[in-house]
């Protein structure tokens, strides 16, 4: 990674726990609630990953 995780952290985003938490709350909410079914959301996520060529 070009930005290292802080000691004891797992992600570079652990450098900013409040910001990371806010991101996770939005991301989790979009997956657990809403009117779109999960396969449609996952299809969009995978398509986006392929378009930007993200191997993760």
């Amino acid at each position, binding site marked *: 990674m*070009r*930005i*290292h995780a*802080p000691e004891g952290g797992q992600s*570079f*985003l652990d*450098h*900013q726990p*409040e*910001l*990371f938490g*806010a*991101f996770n*709350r*939005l991301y989790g*909410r*979009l997956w*657990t*609630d*809403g*009117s779109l079914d999960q396969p449609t959301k996952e299809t969009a996520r995978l398509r986006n990953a392929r378009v*930007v*060529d993200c191997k993760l």
Partner: protein
Amino acid sequence: MGRDETTSDDGVRTAAITTWLPVPEGTTDVLAMLPAGYDELRTLYRSVWEAGVDAVTLELCRLRIAMLLRSPVDAATRDPRAIAAGLDEDVVDQLPAWPTSDRFTDAQRGALALAEQFVIDPHGFTDDDALAAHAHFTEPQLATLTIAIAVFDALTRVRCVLTTDDGGGTGTAVTAARIGVAFT
């Protein structure tokens, strides 16, 4: 303030757009039509401005993204936090020439390089670019900058997709509406 902007009592700054979305009358922010996540989105947006990177640098990145994605609403808006921090309109005018203009600090140039590559070609951000960014920002600041740029990019694309010309294209019904452009 940009194109016909207003700020509500709860700190949501909205701008006027024309959209192809069927927006119910009385809707104060198109983004609030999200069935879930609007409050979380507002919290995340506010958080990026409070996580260790100066507001002028963030605003320059946001405006550069707006220019690259050709979003008039975003390009016309000025975040109040950046104005309070001393955003200079002469510097904003120089944004298209940021690599060579002497109006930008090296740190701002590093941030703008990251923002530009993020939008145009994230794989084009090289190890050398990353090293240069580390020369001007701490790792916590780089974490903030990365998330801030991602949020600016995402919201700008959302506004581009939802906004249409007044005519709306052949056969498209359009609605005058307001859309959130800053959450303070």
